[in-house]
């Protein structure tokens, strides 16, 4: 298939890896920002092609994982109402709130529907004028334009029974927060290609300048990622910190102007809480005043609760690249896809789900490197699921 198989050829991967090994003279830590990249790295075992001096750490780019518990609890409370049809992308349905998840609400009789597009939720609202239809508008800059379009059309069509529970995040402020942390170990970034397909990458120049880090806009296939790493390492070895575009087949410097226009028309930038990380200024989106009648957070303000996260999930540490999933004491033990303690074990972009799903029969090099860690020892002793 075009744009897939030609980026999965072993000889090309090995060639890129050889160049990386040749030019690497000292240890570097590189963060892949997007959960989709994390899955590709683990699925294809890309770390094994890299020199040991290169450490890859995972970033905050899983929208399911960073949605705050408070919003998930509010979603569960809204979905539990008998007068509501609650529409969500599939990923969100299994994410545990303080007590349970949206699939549990559905099993108990709530009208929870999985949709593939916010426009599908809009159609459900048109078909059910007597019910309140709420769409869980979660995501980064990638989902924002379609969510904005749904809000725009709902207002234009005068739909009074449609609203959005918005949990939209912006990536560059998160990179700034991670780079600005005093204990940041990250030397360079692989920026998320699909985010930049919407936004372009000119706004990343400020980040590269301010924090003296190379940022390479990178795709999601194995060769994309190796090429992205090569471009970052080359800059690091030269002492450069530029924004470069590895994913030129999909990303233009200025992005998708129509999508950006739609975003600006419907949303405005606001402070946002990232689950496990905390509040990051100007890192989220909320509906602008003309669209406030569509804001489910306000319409169902009475459904807010005090979130209670006693799960033990260390998603914040993992999403900021400070720990790897196998360093979590619960990974593969109390926390498995069948009973996740947190979103990173649920989402198809979650790093813990990636490590669990693509685990190998032999103990990984990561586990060997962390053998003093309780989790790694537990994993090594697990007979049914050896890593």
């Amino acid at each position, binding site marked *: 298939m075009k744009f897939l198989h030609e980026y999965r050829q072993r000889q090309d991967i090995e060639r890129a890896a050889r160049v990386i090994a040749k030019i690497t003279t000292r240890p570097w830590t590189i963060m892949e920002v997007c959960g989709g990249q994390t899955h590709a790295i683990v699925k294809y075992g890309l770390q094994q092609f890299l020199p040991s001096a290169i450490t890859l750490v995972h970033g905050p780019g899983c929208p399911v994982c960073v949605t705050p518990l408070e919003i998930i609890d509010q979603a569960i409370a809204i979905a539990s109402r008998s007068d509501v049809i609650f529409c969500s992308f599939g990923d969100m349905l299994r994410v545990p709130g303080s007590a349970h998840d949206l699939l549990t609400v559905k099993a108990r009789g709530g009208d929870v529907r999985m949709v593939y597009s916010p426009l599908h939720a809009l159609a459900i609202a048109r078909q059910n004028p007597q019910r309140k239809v709420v769409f869980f508008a979660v995501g980064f800059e990638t989902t924002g334009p379609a969510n904005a379009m749904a809000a725009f059309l709902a207002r234009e069509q005068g739909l009074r029974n449609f609203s959005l529970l918005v949990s939209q995040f912006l990536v560059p402020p998160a990179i700034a927060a991670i780079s600005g942390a005093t204990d940041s170990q990250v030397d360079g970034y692989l920026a998320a290609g699909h985010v930049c397909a919407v936004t372009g990458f000119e706004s990343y120049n400020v980040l590269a300048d301010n924090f003296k880090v190379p940022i390479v806009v990178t795709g999601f296939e194995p060769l994309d990622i190796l090429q992205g790493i090569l471009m970052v390492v080359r800059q690091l070895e030269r002492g450069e910190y530029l924004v470069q575009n590895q994913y030129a087949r999909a990303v233009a410097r200025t992005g998708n102007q129509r999508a950006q226009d739609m975003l600006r028309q419907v949303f405005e930038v606001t402070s946002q809480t990232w689950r496990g990380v905390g509040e990051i200024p100007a890192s989220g989106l909320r509906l602008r005043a003309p669209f406030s009648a569509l804001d489910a957070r306000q319409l169902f303000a009475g459904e807010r609760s005090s979130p209670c996260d006693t799960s033990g999930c260390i998603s914040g540490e993992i999403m900021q690249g400070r720990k790897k999933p196998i360093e979590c004491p619960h990974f593969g033990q109390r926390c498995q896809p*069948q009973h996740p303690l947190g979103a990173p074990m649920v989402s198809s972009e979650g790093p813990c789900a990636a490590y669990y799903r693509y685990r190998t029969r032999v103990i990984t090099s990561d586990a060997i490197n962390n053998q003093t860690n309780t989790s790694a020892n537990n994993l090594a002793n697990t007979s049914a699921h050896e890593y």
Partner: protein
Amino acid sequence: MNIDCPLPVDTEETIRLGHGSGGELSQKLFRDYIHPYIKNPWLDRLHDSACLPFAGGRLAFTTDSFVVSPLFFPGGNIGELAVYGTVNDLAMSGARPMYLSCSLVLEEGLPLKTLARVMASMGRAAAQSGVQLVTGDTKVVERGKGDGLYINTAGVGVLEHERAIEPGAICAGDRILLSGDIGRHGMAVMASREGLAFDTPLQSDCAPLHGPVHDLLEAGIRVHCLRDLTRGGLATALVELARARGASFVLQESAVPICASVEGACELLGLDPFYVANEGRFVVFVAPEDEPAALDILHRHTVSAASRTIGQVTAVGRPDVVLTNVLGCERLLDLLPGEQLPRIC
């Protein structure tokens, strides 16, 4: 460690959609809530059909229910599924399918024309499969208490040989053959249900499989086990067999055919084609010496013309399925916790 922390999913004591996915929740449902109450030697074999002693010979007996939505989808409909599904379950135990029952649960408001279309399809499918629909039942439920039409079929077949074709017969060294590309049915139904349009239309692979199985057995191929790939896809079927036998399988990812339209749709939605449903594909475990002859026979049938070897049984005693990917890395295949859910972006 806070061991009192509530585990959000596992503590629920109600049926969830995931219990019907064929994955880990389905296994747990069977293991904890069904099997303990009806244990017997035939059920314990965990095969598609029960092979029962009868009048000096053996009968295969099976049942299945069909709850697909929409009722009509590209490449098939619920009526064909109901016949082929049960015919295939019988074939997978090495039996010649003979007689089927048909129990209909009809929802108030279902157009009679729709019922007639479904029944006509069932009649054609039965004729194509060489079986007779010999008994049945109808029930009607109130509007809103069904998806228009549910069908249950049971089937009886005859075992015309002495061999035990079941998970317990799988041996180290066996070759694992796959009868064609995977994921067509699941993606066709999903695309039809959700109104997803792809450049290349997706067609279900819904088909009867008794023909190639019959010829394999007639030719004396040492078939150790057969399994049709239904809900849960190739990965789920193989993990179940590995667990049932206590055997280790190694697969080559590049050897598993996936058509471009299924691959593209899965990439777009973030789904793994190894876990997407099929209705006209099966795997065959054969002795290594018989691999070329078995492939030759399979290639003569339209439904299995694209058969190929995808892996082998490496050891008995260690129940796992290892997939070697295109870059030479290995990963374990496992049962999914529930339904596959499309990703956000």
